[in-house]
């Protein structure tokens, strides 16, 4: 964990955080309505953790924000973009939204540095030299500057996830989406990834994080949103939702997540 301690030193103070506004969002797969009218606002620089049981629609909600899923109804604004407008330039909007996946999804045919440069050169049209510099800076930011020539299969899960974060950061995003970034990790590497995310939050990034790490949510999140069955059941200040939930479903969920003898089966 030593290698991430100084990661905030890499902060250039250039985060241009964007807000998110979601109104009455509905999404169905066939006849299965997965999101049943979700409204959620995230202010610029705010960190919101999304919690809830498996299948409650957390991933779908996150994927609607950068249009990996097409919403059926409702409105989503991301920074200056109206994501749900029929004429929105999807690719341009996505450049401002970084996404981190549960399974990392690093490009296995490229080393860590090229993972971080390919979209910079091909999408942002940066020179290879500039892209390399940005990539190196961001790899150092996640504590992996010394492993920039490793390929994904030569890195541990936690290292891969940190490269994935560096890859997203290399596009200078204004918002970061995390979909259970530590759920696929060995327990001993979870801490490094959370510590990178904690630093990012301190630097002022807008973050929407799906997680089961209640400790992280309590410490880092400004707000916690509990979802169940495609609706927002409860939301509020992190400490209040986690320590003193008002809704029965929230209490039941937290009891199961926080009970160490309970075995959660996640897909």
């Amino acid at each position, binding site marked *: 964990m030593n290698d991430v301690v100084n990661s905030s030193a890499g902060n250039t103070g250039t985060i241009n955080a964007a807000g998110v506004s979601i109104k009455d969002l509905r999404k169905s797969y066939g006849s299965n309505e997965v999101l049943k009218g979700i409204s959620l606002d995230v202010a610029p620089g705010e960190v919101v953790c999304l919690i809830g049981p498996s299948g409650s629609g957390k991933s779908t909600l996150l994927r609607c924000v*950068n249009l*990996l899923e097409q919403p059926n109804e409702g409105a989503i604004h991301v920074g200056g973009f109206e994501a749900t407008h029929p004429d929105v330039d999807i*690719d*341009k909007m*996505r*450049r401002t*939204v*970084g*996404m981190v*996946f549960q*399974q990392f*999804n*690093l*490009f*296995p*045919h490229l080393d860590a540095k090229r993972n971080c440069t*390919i*979209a910079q050169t*091909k*999408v*942002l049209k940066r020179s290879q030299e500039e892209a390399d510099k940005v990539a190196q800076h961001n790899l150092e930011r996640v504590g992996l500057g010394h492993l920039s020539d490793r390929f994904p*299969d030569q890195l541990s899960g936690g290292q891969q996830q940190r490269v*994935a974060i560096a*890859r*997203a950061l290399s*596009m200078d995003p204004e918002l970061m989406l995390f979909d259970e970034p530590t759920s696929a990790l060995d327990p001993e590497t979870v801490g490094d990834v959370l510590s990178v995310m904690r630093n990012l939050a301190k630097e002022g990034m807008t973050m929407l994080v799906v997680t089961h790490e209640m400790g992280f949510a309590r410490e880092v999140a400004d707000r916690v949103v509990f979802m169940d069955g495609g609706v927002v059941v409860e939301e509020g200040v992190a400490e209040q939702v986690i320590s003193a939930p008002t809704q029965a479903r929230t209490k039941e969920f937290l009891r199961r997540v926080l009970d160490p003898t309970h075995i959660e089966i996640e897909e």
Partner: protein
Amino acid sequence: MAMTARQRARVSLYVQIGIFVVAVAALVLATDWKTVGNSVFNFGKIGPMFPDIFLVGLKNTLIYTFLGFVVGLSGGLLLALMKLSSFPLYRWIATGYIEFFRGVPALLVFIAFGYGVPLAFGVQWNVTLIVMISLGMVASAYIAETLRAGLQAVPKGQLEAARSLGMPQWRAMVSIVIPQAFKIVLPPLTNEVILLTKDSSLIYVLGLTASQYDLTKFGRDGISSLGAGLTPLLVAGAFYLVITIPLSLLARKFESRSARTKR
């Protein structure tokens, strides 16, 4: 008396070896060795085949195969992408093409492009072009199916990660998905080259000048001119193995490499 499984396996092995030995012995005894010596292993008379079968025949076979492969790879990639397209018309065209060219004998394709097209359109194509098109069109159909499988084997998350970085669909395919698909299909693709090498021999149906002869044509010519029976074909066959065995070894190397990285 009952046998253990191991004893039974051993007896079964002895029986198999016995059958094999008897079969080989019968074949050796039944063979007319004098005739075979004159007409199949008559290496004394094949001198005139050299060095041209090597300098011209081998070279041309390699060129024809290479050209066919280049066309087949480009056409195959296009067809594979069409087959995976969300646009139904593209899928139908690709499916029709693939089923047709996998279904008809390659020989007919050579005849169609060698004789049919010149007749129908009054054009005179040179042999290299005809081989390139005939072989390439047949290869496209086979390679398309191989590449389609490769493209589908790339996890969906790869495309999603690329798109989430702001890459347009085509860029994500070109930079992220297609390179990984090629890596996956390298072994079967190498096998396609082996098949193509052999299919290139079908140009014998076209009228060839001496400088256009491939290995098989040299072999067939040798049969009629050298009086060494089928020996020239044996020589030509040996040259094919010179090409195909290294390719085969290469395919196996690719296979073991991808088996190692897939943990």
